[in-house]
Each structure stands twice: as structure tokens, then as C-alpha cells.
């Protein structure tokens, strides 16, 4: 196959629902073709951009705050369009996943497939675990990503190994 498949769970596990991305990656372990790389990250743009190198398809999963009900799932095709304004980092020094995607697009480094799954968070207190609504959403978003990865994987004609 040309290029790797990569799933990145983004967030800080010490900050309540910000750990959602990592929890999804933990749920996905053992449920994807072995060649699909699973990783977790804090979302720093340059490090994330670095991970895109040589990648054919990437799934990012992260928590977000947009005012929707906790546990709400949304999916974006970042190849088709930039992430909505509301999901962009409000910091200029701390560049986040949305900036990494736009930099990758500008530099011609955006993988051919780039899906972003977000889970609406409720609590981000230091040291807290996932809130019930977010914890309940983790298997669902995990299953969605697993299904998308499997379909994309089959399309490459690779063995399920």
C-alpha cells in the first residue's frame, strides 16, 4: 500500500474530558488491522504535522467545546474543507490540530484522507476523569472510526493483518 494509516487521539488525560481522544485510541487497540498505527498526542501542531509525513490516511479524534450537549459526536472531512472556525485554537503561540491541518494543506502535505472526529466535552477539571456522557460516547466514536478505517483499508486491497 502507498502510505501509512494513522489514528491520533489528541488531548490531555489529566484534564477531564480532554482525555476523550486518548480514550478512543485505547478502545481501538486490537480492533483495527495491525498495520494501522495508533498514537496519542497533546495536539501540538508541528509535532502533529510531522506525523502526517508518509501517511495516506489519518483520523484525528479530540474533545471540543461548542455549546452542544456533552457527548455529542461530530465528524469532519478535513480534506474537503477547513475545520469550522469554532474548532480552531484561540491561541496564536500554541498552534493546535486545526492549524496543523491548514499548514499541511498549504504545504501540500495533507494526507489524501483526513477525518476529524470530535466529542463534545463537559468537564475539563484538572485530575478529573471522563464525564459520564463522554465516557458513554467513546465506544461509539471508536466504532465509527473502526468502520471507516476498515472500509478505507479494504479499498487499498491490503490483507486484514
Amino acid at each position, binding site marked *: 500500500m502507498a502510505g501509512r494509516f494513522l489514528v491520533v487521539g489528541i488531548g490531555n488525560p489529566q484534564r477531564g474530558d480532554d482525555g476523550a481522544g486518548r480514550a478512543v485510541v485505547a478502545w481501538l487497540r486490537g480492533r483495527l488491522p495491525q498495520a494501522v498505527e495508533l498514537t496519542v498526542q*497533546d495536539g*501540538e501542531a*508541528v*509535532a502533529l*504535522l*510531522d506525523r502526517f509525513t508518509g501517511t495516506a490516511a489519518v483520523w484525528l479524534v479530540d474533545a471540543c467545546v461548542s455549546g452542544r450537549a456533552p457527548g455529542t459526536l461530530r465528524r469532519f472531512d478535513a480534506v474537503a474543507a477547513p475545520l469550522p472556525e469554532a474548532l480552531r485554537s*484561540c*491561541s*496564536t*503561540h*500554541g*498552534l493546535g490540530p486545526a*492549524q496543523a491541518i*491548514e*499548514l499541511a494543506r*498549504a*504545504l*501540500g502535505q495533507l494526507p489524501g484522507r483526513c477525518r476529524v472526529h470530535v466529542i463534545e466535552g463537559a468537564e475539563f477539571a484538572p485530575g478529573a476523569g471522563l464525564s459520564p456522557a463522554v465516557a458513554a460516547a467513546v465506544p461509539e466514536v471508536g466504532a465509527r472510526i473502526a468502520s471507516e478505517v476498515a472500509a478505507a483499508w479494504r479499498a487499498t486491497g491490503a490483507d486484514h493483518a
Partner: protein
Amino acid sequence: MTRKTIQVNYLARVEGEGALKVVIRKGRVQRAELSIFEPPRFFEALLRGRDCSEAPDITARICGICPVAYQMSAVHAIERALGIEVTGALRDLRRLLYCGEWIESHALHIYLLHAPDFLGYAGGIDMARDHPEAVRRGLGLKQAGNRLMALLGGREIHPINVRVGGFYKVPERSALQALVEPLEQAREAALATLAWAAEFDFPARERDYVFVALRHPQEYPCNEGRIVSNRGLDIDAEDYEREFGEIQVARSTAHQSRLRDGTSYLVGPLARYSLNFDRLFPDVQRAARAAGLGSECRNPYRSILVRAVEVLQACSEALRIIDGYQAPPQPAVEFSPRAGIGWAATEAPRGLLYHRYQLHADGSIAAAYIVPPTAQNQSSIEADLADYIQGFLDLPDEALRHRCEQTVRNYDPCISCATHFLRLDWDRE
């Protein structure tokens, strides 16, 4: 006469929330006021009652881009209060970690925040479409800094491996050796950065700044040195508060620092460079001169070049440290709590960062006082605007607004450290 107000809601590419008001009367800039309305963050009060060992991790949270600076000023001040000294390989590792932060912070500012001003783009992402090779080079540089931070600090942002007395864990020599090749590439990229930025068009603006920076007997300053100025100041960090004071201004939640006689002063790359040119490695000095810099730089628009020089120095210094590194037998110097007071200043990417801690006998913090570089530079930013913008008043409004923003960005101000975006008001009659 027509009175004109131009309001811009967001000045992008600076960190923190603030506003800028320029008052123009009869064709003359009367004054420029930088207002910071970033909410107060109460870190000094937060530290009171906490154990001194917690200070590096608490203060690291003041800033996502220069957490190492906060950790370093904190540990040095607390170690002084405790009467312990960190030397040898542990000291070298701290300096190496600081090199990582300088590389990371400067590369980000040069390529994604400042260069777009010179090349006429709204931001780094727009610039990347037309200058992909340059931006890739910048990102590669930043990544070299990130790798140093991740290896020594445990992660790229808000490192967790720094403690009073040293580190929680020190790397093996082999782990550092793996960074030699990326750092050698980074050094080449830094040289290319300098040559690239040297071609920019720099407004010919200079002021007679009072430069304040650390100075060390042998090294380009980073963790250690005396606080010196180009006006003859030469003091230990212990005497910082005797020479410098903070004032409150109604428009800002950040304090403004002044010399005790009321003079504003400048900290950061221009000050460091101008006071320590002779401490740069000879080949770095040559590269600086080849880029058109002298042994002193008073033009803040050229700070992009000085940052590139400092990235080059930091890459060379990192390689030097790695070359001589042998893992120390202990990751940290042990200490016993005691009552005391300690002061330290280190060189954050944006300039001098002063910390003072008073400790109780059980090692808990009785008082903490922190003066970040952007608070020190605020009045200098205002003075630059008042002075430089006069010469640009015949520009169309949009170009003039851009020039104001660029003048602020020269400082790479970290407003969230000092107390998120800048609103710009023109008051013109």
C-alpha cells in the same frame, strides 16, 4: 479638522488579549497606549502555601511557549534560598533544555508570526502556500527544538521533568546522541534562515534603548549571569528590585516595569545580543555580520535577524553540550528545607524573567514575586509606537494599522504571560 477612529478587533499573531490606542493630534502622534485586558492570573498568590518543590510545575503553566524559562527562574531562585548549587552535567542539561525552548519559540515566531509581516501575508498559513520551502524549514527547526524539549522535559509543552535540584530523570548519552543529526540539520536551517531574513525590507527605525540582559563571564546568557545594561548597571539578581520597579496603569491588567528613575528599558533578543555579542561563538558572530548585523542592534524590526542568530547559537550550544555529556550519577542534588529567600533571573526567549521566593522553614512558599519579560517591555513597545509610527502617518489606514501591528510583533509579546488579541483604536484629529 476631521477626527478619525479606526478600530481593529483583533491583532493576530500575538499571544494574549490586549488593545492598542494611538492618539494623533494635528498630524503628530501624541501617545500610544498598550492596554492589556487579559484577566489577572494570580499565580503569585497561587504559589503561597505550596511546597517549594511544586513551584517549577506550577509556574510552567504561566506560559505554553516558554514554560522552561519559568521553570528555570523558579528552580534557580529556590535553590538559592535553600543554599544548594546545581553544577556539572545537571547544569549543562538545564542549559540544553533552555536551548530547546529558544529554538522552538524563536522558530515559531520567525516563520509563522513575524516573517508574514515582511512578506505581506496575513499569517503563516497564507505564507506557506507561496513559500512552502521556507515554512518547511521553519517547522523543521521548531521540531528540532521540540525534540530537545521532549527528551529532556518529558514532553514538548509544559515539561514535567524539571525539579528543584535538577531533574527527575536524566538521559543516557546515547539518547542525546540521537539528536546530533537533527541538530546539525537545524544548524544548517538556522544559517539558511538568517540568509533568508537578511533579504527582507527593514524600516530604518532606531531608538536609543536602555538594554537590560544577563551577562555571563564566558557564555551567551541563558540560565546565569549578572543583570547588566548599556548604561553601566551591573547587579546580582538579589538587587533587581532595588533597581527596577513595577507600576500599575489603569488600562492594563499587567504591570509595567521601569527603572527606578522612571526610564523604560528593553529586554529580549536585541538587548541580549547587543550586550553579549562577544559571547556568541565566533562562527555565529561571522554569520550575524554576513547577515548585515553589527555588534549591536537598535532596530527592533531587525529582531527577526537577531532571533535567527540566537537559534544558530542555541543549535551550536546544544551540539557542544551533547558532545561533552556524560550522564551524572544522580539526577538531582538532594536538599533539606529551610527558611530563606532566593532570587534569580534567567533569559526567557522574550527576555529577562525574574523570580523571588521566600520560604518557610518547612519549605513551603511564604511569598512569590514574578516579573515576566513582556511586562518589562510594555512601556518600550508604547514608546516604539509613539516614535516610529510618526514616520508612517502618510500611509493608507490599512497599511498604517499593519505597521502598528508589526511594531508590536517585533517584541513577540506574550500578553498571557504578562497577565488574547489586540484591539486597535485610532483617535485622530
